[in-house]
């Protein structure tokens, strides 16, 4: 959930709760006030009626409301000695509404000329259900209005307020340490964001520096290793030419040579990787990829034949790409070589060129490979003696350099796809 919606959600919940409490309190307070003023009015009318009765005793026999708002019944002292002013709600048939409606009624008693009378005064009253309904609707509209208002406000104000934050977020999302571009931060007046930007800048610079240093180290180390490796290899070759060596010693020498060569390959692969990373392959030409693949396959025919593997190329679609020729060759060599090396004996390695895609498929004993790990450096499925574990990492680095998509899929066989 987004930050903006998150705050809105909380606001909506809190508002609902607060408005509910407010409504209840407000309702009862209002009702209380209404009763209070009704009752005051009734009391005033009581006094008016009593005063009128003193002047005009004829009203003392008005026993039904009819067109008036009061009734007076003669009564005896014993019946009213307990009676005090009492207010209550009751129902009365209203002609205009054609229904019983609530009215407020004051019942009291008074004495005139030694006789006792019971007086009832009424006044029409608030219809509570109507009041509640009205109140409910106004509160509902208020609530909706507030929520919409908050939403708009959030979207407008908060978005503007958080804009520097979102801008940093987008930049971080697009940040790629391999591209060696820092991030330009927007200026902001908000202290927290200034601090955030500052800290991110510091962290990024640290990462970039250590990434560069690491890359530099690999390159320097591989570079420095070349010479001692060359010397050792050549010395051993010279030694191997000596006639006096026994077959046993030759065998030992062969093993040392083999391992040194393996180390050389590893070293060269690392050097190649850091060269690709450092963008040291500048030269580009419009290369016929289809033709290049045919050439590479041709180079590997003897090797494939030795493993009794058939290489079939399907599709003649012409694919052209502006690319460094050496890197293109290395990319497809690594993929094709991989397919041949890992293919089951006596199987077929199929290379299909369809549209802008090149699939390289081989059947192997190993099941699905770990897609996450597959293209990382030094990933090995089985500890093959001569594998550097860098072939696919190099292929991936080349593919990324030229924005090609190199993907892996498993459908009872391993399929590597390069999409142009």
């Amino acid at each position, binding site marked *: 959930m987004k930050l903006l919606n998150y705050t809105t959600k909380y606001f909506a919940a809190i508002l609902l709760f607060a408005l509910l409490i407010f409504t209840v309190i407000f309702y009862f307070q209002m009702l209380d006030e209404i009763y209070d003023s009704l009752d005051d009015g009734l009391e005033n009318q009581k006094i008016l009626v009593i005063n009128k009765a003193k002047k005009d005793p004829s009203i003392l026999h008005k026993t039904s409301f009819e067109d008036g708002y009061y009734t007076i019944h003669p009564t005896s002292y014993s019946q009213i000695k307990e009676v005090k002013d009492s207010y209550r709600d009751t129902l009365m048939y209203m002609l205009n509404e054609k229904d019983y409606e609530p009215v407020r009624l004051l019942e009291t008693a008074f004495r005139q000329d030694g006789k006792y009378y019971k007086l009832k005064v009424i006044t029409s009253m608030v219809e509570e259900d109507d009041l509640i309904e009205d109140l409910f609707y106004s509160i509902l509209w208020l609530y909706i209005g507030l929520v919409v208002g908050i939403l708009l406000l959030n979207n407008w104000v908060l978005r503007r307020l958080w804009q520097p934050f979102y801008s940093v977020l987008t930049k971080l999302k697009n940040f790629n340490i391999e591209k060696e571009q820092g991030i330009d931060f927007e200026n902001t007046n908000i202290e927290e964001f200034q601090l955030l930007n500052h800290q991110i800048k510091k962290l990024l610079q640290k990462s970039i520096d250590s990434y560069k240093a690491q890359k530099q180290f690999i390159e320097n180390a591989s570079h420095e290793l070349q010479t001692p490796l060359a*010397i050792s290899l050549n010395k051993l*070759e010279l030694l191997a030419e000596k006639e006096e060596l026994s077959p046993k010693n030759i065998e030992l020498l062969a093993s040392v040579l083999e391992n040194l060569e393996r180390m050389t390959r590893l070293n060269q692969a690392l050097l190649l990787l850091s060269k690709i990373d450092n963008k040291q392959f500048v030269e580009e030409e419009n290369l016929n990829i289809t033709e290049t693949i045919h050439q590479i396959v041709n180079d590997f025919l*003897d090797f494939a034949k*030795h493993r009794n593997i058939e290489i079939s190329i399907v599709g003649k679609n012409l694919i052209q790409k502006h690319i460094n020729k050496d890197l293109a060759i290395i990319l497809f060599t690594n993929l094709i070589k991989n397919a041949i*090396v890992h293919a089951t004996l006596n199987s077929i390695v199929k290379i299909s060129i369809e549209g802008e895609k090149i699939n390289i498929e081989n059947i192997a004993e190993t099941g699905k490979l770990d897609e996450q790990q597959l293209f990382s450096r030094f990933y090995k499925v089985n500890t093959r003696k001569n*594998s550097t574990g860098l072939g696919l990492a190099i292929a991936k680095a080349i593919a990324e350099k030229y924005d090609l998509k190199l993907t892996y899929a498993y459908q009872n066989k391993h399929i590597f796809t390069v999409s142009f």
Partner: protein
Amino acid sequence: MKVLIIEDEEEMLQNMKQTLEKECYLVETATDYDSAFLKIGVYEYDCILLDISLPGQNGLEILKELKKRGISDGVIIVSAKNSLDDKLEGLHLGADDYLPKPFHMAELNARIKAIFRRRNLKGNTFIQIENLKIDIENRIAFIEGEELLLNRKEFDILFYLTSNRNRLVNKTALAEHVWGDHIDQTDSFDFIYSQIKNLRKKLKDHQAQVEVKAIYGIGYKLVSL
């Protein structure tokens, strides 16, 4: 044949020197460009092996100097950098070849021989070992004047082995030379063996006085019978 090696790494220098002396070349050495210039000024060499990454100096300057002086010695650039730019610039400045370190001695040998051949092209484009004769230009091998029918790979192998006659040729060096650099990471070089087997059979069928001898685990050697 006179060869000058310009290389600051003493051990590397000795390796190359030993290898080339086995081929009975006259080998001179220099460990920096100043002494190299002195030698170049005095003698004429058939081939110069030039390490272009000596500390503090740019080996390509030597090439420019050579070109300026009109010296057309065959130059092979040797470099641990394996940089395409250096290679292109070096070749542009008149170097004949570019050999990245580390390299196999057999490869160095073959490259030097190729330079010698190119420089002495007028006469000899044939190699004769016992009764085996190789026509380099037309890529044909003969035994006792009779053509030996070889496929491209077989010819390349035979030619490479004759360039390194009587020397042990590492099978990696052979594979890289014949099948290209990219073959190097394949699981094993056993697949070379089938080509060697065919070559051997053909040599034997024609009663060649040379044979390809396998040195267990390391490689092959062309020896006279």
